[in-house]
């Protein structure tokens, strides 16, 4: 059982469309990180959110941390084929601040 549930698991969209990926838990996290992983590679850190309600923007990507620090979302505007990949959310807990707990991932495919 995943402590962090991501939805959807798979997403196939056309270039130019918008999308949102969700990361939900019943547990509180001290911080939450989003990574993107491409085939044959390790995850690459996109952003870290720490404060409940925090919103961070990275070009066309918007990340939000829930007020209660139990959930997060990633919104991509005008998706491009280069956004294709596996998106992973990962949480850190205060009492185990060195152990990332990952969600199962959302596999995104953006078709040209």
């Amino acid at each position, binding site marked *: 059982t*995943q402590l*962090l549930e*991501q939805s959807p698991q798979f997403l196939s969209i056309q270039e130019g469309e918008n999308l949102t990926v969700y990361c939900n838990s019943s547990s509180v996290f*001290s*911080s939450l*990180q989003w*990574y993107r992983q491409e085939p*044959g*590679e*390790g*995850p*690459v*850190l996109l952003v*870290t959110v*720490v404060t409940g309600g925090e919103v961070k923007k990275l070009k066309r990507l918007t990340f939000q941390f829930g007020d209660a620090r139990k959930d997060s979302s990633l919104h991509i505007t005008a998706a491009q084929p280069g956004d294709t990949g596996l998106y*992973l959310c*990962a949480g*850190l807990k205060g009492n*185990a*601040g*060195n*152990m*990332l*707990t*990952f*969600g*199962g*991932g959302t596999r995104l495919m953006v078709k040209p």
Partner: protein
Amino acid sequence: DAGVTQSPTHLIKTRGQHVTLRCSPISGHKSVSWYQQVLGQGPQFIFQYYEKEERGRGNFPDQFSGHQFPNYSSELNVNALLLGDSALYLCASSFLAGGNYGYTFGSGTRLTVV
């Protein structure tokens, strides 16, 4: 500047054998964490080494062990391999033990147990 390097990139072993995977962190980073990623799932934390000591362990049996050397490189050892140990093994490097600033991952070692 070199990123996190892992070796070997691919490995095929037989059930019951032993395997050693290696990781060199980013220069100046003192923490190395190991994760197992089974196909179709997110990575799972195995353990972390910081300043040559194990600083945390996930839900993995003693079959999995590790070591950190004086130069902060690390080894992951897996004894008595099972088919279910087939996975991508990822090494993650950070300057501090805590992960609030994020981790830099290597490209992983793909282990296949037959």
